[in-house]
């Protein structure tokens, strides 16, 4: 395994973490959308993510492109293996995008209502499916000698992966509630803090059950000759629990920004625990370990990884600049107008 390959494993991880933190909050807002009772509140929910969500979704596109470029066999096996699940993710993302843009375009309650439902469903569906997909990657897949997934759609719906789907949903819902409490004012912000408190317990329980199942299933993969490797996922899980508790305390003290930042760290640590548990595998092959797709046997050529590293080194600071800039411009709280 070369340094370049490990670097790209980490860079893909960073892109996925960036996506989970950024699109995570607007997927979470989508989860809460139908819980808001007033029309004015639902409008405020949409306004709170309107300038950001599209840029957030670009993290997914870039992450997908980077996975394709750096680890083509992994991209090919996972995307084709999860075919129907991927199509449902697309269904959700398409309706969600159009809903955000179109719901205000016609002055009719039925029109807005239909798009509100599309927005909520389009947010919940991907949130669950991302978790299911990650659960299956952690668990390992049945592959043939060419790396094609062989077990079919229903084998993806195993208990551990479905649980991971719920972990994903609750994680984004919690993150979205923190975001709303930071971004909105008054009554609805207080309500969001209440949602966050309740969801916090749900997420904690689901996450701990998933961790337990993962440990009992032996999903922390061994790395030949590196004994301490198995402690790293444990450490990141601990850090996730710590930052999650900090988020809870900030929320109690009505410090929305602090809670949101701590929650972002929680997501990062949760994703890191997945990445470090799986490493040095990318797709563990359950029927023949030797057929697994690993960081060392599935990467692109050194020249491609190097060229892409240059692109990343030039591009990523600019991207972080845009992200900061747009959040700076739209830093003001979103007001809920009276109905």
């Amino acid at each position, binding site marked *: 395994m070369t340094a370049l390959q490990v670097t790209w494993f980490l860079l893909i991880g960073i892109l996925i973490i960036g996506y989970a933190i950024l699109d995570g909050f607007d997927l979470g807002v989508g989860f809460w959308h139908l819980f808001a009772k007033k029309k004015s509140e639902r409008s405020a929910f949409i306004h709170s993510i309107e300038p*950001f969500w599209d840029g957030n979704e670009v993290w997914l596109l870039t992450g997908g492109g980077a996975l394709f470029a750096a680890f083509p066999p992994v991209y090919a096996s996972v995307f084709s293996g999860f*075919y129907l699940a991927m199509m449902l993710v697309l269904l959700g993302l398409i309706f969600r995008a159009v809903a955000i843009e179109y719901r205000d375009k016609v002055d009719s309650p039925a029109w807005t209502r239909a798009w509100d439902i599309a927005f909520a469903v389009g947010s919940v569906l991907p949130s669950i499916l991302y978790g299911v997909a990650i659960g299956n990657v952690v668990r390992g897949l049945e592959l043939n000698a060419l*790396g*094609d997934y062989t077990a079919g759609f229903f084998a993806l719906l195993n208990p551990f992966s479905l649980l991971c789907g719920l972990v994903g949903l609750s994680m984004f819902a919690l993150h979205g509630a923190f975001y709303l409490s930071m971004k909105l004012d008054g009554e609805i912000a207080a309500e969001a803090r209440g949602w966050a408190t309740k969801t916090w317990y749900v997420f904690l329980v689901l996450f701990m059950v998933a961790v337990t199942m993962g440990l009992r299933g032996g999903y922390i993969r061994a790395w030949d000759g590196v004994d301490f490797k198995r402690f790293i996922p444990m450490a990141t899980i601990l850090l996730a629990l710590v930052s999650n508790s900090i988020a809870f305390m900030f929320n109690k003290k009505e410090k929305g920004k602090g809670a949101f930042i701590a929650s972002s760290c929680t997501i990062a640590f949760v994703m890191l625990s997945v990445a470090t548990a799986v490493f040095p595998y990318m797709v563990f092959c359950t029927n023949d370990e030797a057929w697994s797709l690993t960081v060392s046997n599935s990467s692109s050529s050194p020249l491609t990884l190097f060229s892409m590293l240059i692109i990343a080194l030039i591009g990523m600071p600019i991207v972080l600049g845009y992200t900061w800039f747009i959040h700076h*411009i739209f830093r003001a709280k979103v007001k809920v107008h009276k109905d």
Partner: protein
Amino acid sequence: MDAVLLARIQFGLTIGFHYIFPPMTIGLGWMIFHYNNRYQENGNELYHQLAKFWTRIFAITFIIGVATGITMEFQFGTNWANYSRFVGDIFGAPLAAEGVFAFFLESSFLGILLYGRKHVSQRMYWFSSLMVACGATLSAFWIVVANSWQQTPAGYEIIEKTLASGEIVRQAQLTNFWEAVFNPSTLLRYSHVIMSALCVGTFFVLGTSAWQILKGRHVEFARASMRSAVVPAFAVIMLTMVVGHHHGHQVSQTQPAKLAAFEGLWETGPNAPLMLLGFPNEKEEKNDFAIQIPGMVSLFVGGSFDTEVQGLKDFAPEDRPPVAVSFWSFHLMFYLGMWFALVSFVGVILWLKKKLTSYKWYLWAATLTVPLPFVANEVGWIAAEVGRQPWVVYNELRTSHAVSASVSAGEILASMIMFGLIYTLLFCLWIFLLKKQFHKGPDPIEMTEGEVA
């Protein structure tokens, strides 16, 4: 139906639908920048109004481009896993670069363009408008890089890789990044695509505004819109045709089978004829009812009637692209281009006489032209992609070897029905909302305090 055919139909339908929208947003993006720029320069409220109105049209269109674009990036992996494995070393990088260098730029500044007028200075707003247009134009660059590499691969070698299971697979491996990016067709195809996108934008503004005048809606505003679009429309269609000519020449050098299919040329030899109309007959390897000009293809390819041009019979039947589809889509694109040149040329003459919006017949001609640049883009793309067949990577990988082994025909059929329903709905919504915006027309000019209308 077999999985390969279904996967091809699904990819064709989803990308064909997607390709309605980005060219329009590239074209409109630059028109909107032009309006914001004029407003910045001279403070004329009319340009402010123009910018605001066309930004609303842009937003409705842009979102469908985004929503259907995600599908495209996923589909290489979901439906074309073996293709992804074969080309991943080269093809993935431009997709990632597109995200990093173009989509982030476009989406961040679009947030400001749509929702940020009150949050930023006029200068920053102007800059955002420029960045949105640049972002859209750059994203087309990276996707054309990827597609051009399929057409004219360069900067690579084919290696045999032994998998952990002992299976041996063929793969393309990068040997020179810049040769792969700037492969023989990249720049010509990119220029052609961008110019055609500008055609869509300019002819859309021209034609929909003519329609507004015909219907007596927001007439003064529509006249201003028409006047702003007619010269750009003429300029970009001329450039499209010039670039198209050079691109055609390049195809004759790099993909001779494709050129032969475009021209319906069966026999190899000098004095190759240009078929204006006719029906390529693939069974009997000849053209029925052909109307042709002798020697024109030779002249076009090599500058002389003596230039030898390869015909389809030079290629084994299994290596030929579908001739009729290639021929018809290419010719339809070509004739539509001629029509656009005529419409915009007449428009420029009328504009010089200050009679652009005076004649009903011209307004009707411009109105009926609105959908045609979209059609020209679609058939141009069909010509480019069908002409590449039976290869997915020209002369290296056959389309039939590129699909996902783990996806069944039934699964593809299910997803295809899903896309069919969603995309039909999206198209109807798009047309409905566009119509609504045209009825509503521009925002009234904002009066500064103390001014009375």
